[in-house]
């Protein structure tokens, strides 16, 4: 039995819930959002990823109604939302600074939004208890925000934003202050909530692993622009630029110039005294065009003897070994001085490892292991 894949972005008949249409946001002379267009669909879990100051919070604030675009328009469910005040939008935001009300208890903070609607007192109490349980804050319900820890505060902010079950939930770095275990649990809870309520989530995060875990699609931003929007696996396997490849996960970048080498195949000349590297690409390159080959460390094999079946094999010496428990990363210095990272799974015990520091080794990868990029 095959489940229908959730991919409304591939369906031309699907109407997006949110549409940024050539949106620009300026603060004085400074362009925070630069002519950005983007569609987000209902029930998506959409992650915004990018370096500090690239405009993630600004996008959220425009969706929540605290900023208006300087140019362009934003549509929510087909309607231009310029000028609709924040309290009239079916959107809730979890603030990066949490913005908990210091004069109210945790309980009252979570109930704050619910009290603004027409819920009965009893229903509000039930809902708040539910939220407290979900975020494991039941014990702290009576405390004030300054009497709990940073991570607990973050959970209160999350609970408060979730409580109203909005159509669109904006989470600005919701899990940054949590420890790894709680963070993973909360990620799965978020995904559960998202699945059970069908709420559309837009989440900002600095943690690419988190984005990959929770998101249906990821947008990688830089300086107010979106560089690539795609599903996590596409972003990882088929980045459209060195910037994206480098931003998401670990990557080796080898720069050179390309020569055609058959059907969707190219040779990359990279250093003078080494054989050209063979790479498959569905993008077309012109002759001698500068290009970059991006290869993930786990796609590179490392061996003592020269591998025979691999298309690309280069010799080098082991500079460093980073032991990560389940994985080991070998830093291999090539003849030209470049250092390439190769990663292997530690399925054997450490003592039986055959490769050590200063060893001369071969690293190798197939023609389809890497992505050939123009920029």
């Amino acid at each position, binding site marked *: 039995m095959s489940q229908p894949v959730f991919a409304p972005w591939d369906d031309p008949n699907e109407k997006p819930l949110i549409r940024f249409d050539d949106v620009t946001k300026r603060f004085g002379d400074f362009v925070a959002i630069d002519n950005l267009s983007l569609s987000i669909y209902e029930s998506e879990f959409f992650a915004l990823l990018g370096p500090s100051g690239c405009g993630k919070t600004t996008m959220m604030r425009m969706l929540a109604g*605290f900023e208006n675009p300087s140019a362009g328009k934003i549509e929510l469910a087909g309607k231009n939302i310029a000028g609709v005040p*924040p*309290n009239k939008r079916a959107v809730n935001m979890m603030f990066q600074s949490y*913005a908990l*009300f210091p*004069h109210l208890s945790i309980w009252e903070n979570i109930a*704050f*939004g619910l009290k*603004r609607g027409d819920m009965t007192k009893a229903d509000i109490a039930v809902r708040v208890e539910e939220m407290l349980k979900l975020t494991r804050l039941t014990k702290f319900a009576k405390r004030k925000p300054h009497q709990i820890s940073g991570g607990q505060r973050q959970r209160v902010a999350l609970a408060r934003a979730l409580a109203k079950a909005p159509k669109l939930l904006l989470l600005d770095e919701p899990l940054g202050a949590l420890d790894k275990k709680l963070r993973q649990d909360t990620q799965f809870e978020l995904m559960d909530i998202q699945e059970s309520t069908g709420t559309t989530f837009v989440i900002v995060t600095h943690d690419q692993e988190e984005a990959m875990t929770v998101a249906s699609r990821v947008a990688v931003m830089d300086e107010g622009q979106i560089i690539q929007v795609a599903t996590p696996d596409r972003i990882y396997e088929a980045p459209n630029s060195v910037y994206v490849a480098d931003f998401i996960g670990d990557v080796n970048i080898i720069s050179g110039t390309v020569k055609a080498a058959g059907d969707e195949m190219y040779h990359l000349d990279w250093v003078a005294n080494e054989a050209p590297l063979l790479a498959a690409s569905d993008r077309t390159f012109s002759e001698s065009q500068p290009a970059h080959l991006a290869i993930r460390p786990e796609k590179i094999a490392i061996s003592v003897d020269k591998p025979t079946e691999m298309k690309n094999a280069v010799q080098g010496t082991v500079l460093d070994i980073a032991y990560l428990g389940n994985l080991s990363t070998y830093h291999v210095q090539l003849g030209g001085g470049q250092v390439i990272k190769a990663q292997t799974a530690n399925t054997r015990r450490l003592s039986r490892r055959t490769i050590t520091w200063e060893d001369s080794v071969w690293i190798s990868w197939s023609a389809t292991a890497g992505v050939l990029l123009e920029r």
Partner: protein
Amino acid sequence: MNIRRFILIAVPYAWLLALFLIPFIIVFKISLSDLALSIPPYSPTAKDGISAMFKAFDLENFIFLASDDLYWRAYLSSLKIALISTILAVLVGYPMAYGMARAPEEWRPTLMMLVILPFWTSFLIRVYAWVGILSNEGLLNQFLLWLGIIDAPLTIMNTTTAVYIGIVYTYLPFMILPIYAALDRLDESLIEAAEDLGCSRLKAFWLVTIPLSRNGIIAGCFLVFIPALGEFVIPSLLGGSGTLMIGKVLFEEFFNNRDWPVASAVAVILLLILIVPIVLFQRNQQRQAEVES
């Protein structure tokens, strides 16, 4: 180390002792004495011998204060005037403080200056200026007549209204500054969060801004109420004979009647009345410091 600590603590206490406790004890001592035609105008004094002096002390003046209704009417009237002035000062001061806190960053020092500026001229001159504004031929009446809003001058001078105007005017900065300090600290994103959760602007103001500036309001109220209660200059210059305030009574006892013992008793009672709000004020400040730490 311990000596240093001792000195650090001793200096402010010595200061308080010299400037507050000792004068208070002297006043208290005089309040227990009797009026006398001598210099100083009371007896007994330490010249009569310490034990004789203590024997001659009595509570006669306090009993007199309680029996003559002038005094307790003056206390009540002062409390009422101070209370109403405080409320008026909140109503006038809060919007001003709010406006200052919301003004663009670069304007704020200027606005702050404007609030503090009146302190640079003598208090007495500023109160006299109000005589020129409020009297029958004063600026306000002439202006209103010129506009045609009234056809006969309003009598404001020498009424309680003039006293309220004077007190609110004089003590307004004490109301504005603590409220401004509280509003200035208020994190803008809290208002945004309230709006995001469904509050209108007004509702967010009521549910977030007001509670979070509460300590500033309370501090301001005490800072206005406490000096207004014992106020003497404003009621005597603007209030005329119709306004009864304990500060004025005290002044008259002291300088017109030269009855130092009764005047001292009035002052002691006034101080006792003031201790309640002063203690409450200190508590409020302390609580605020605790929350912020």
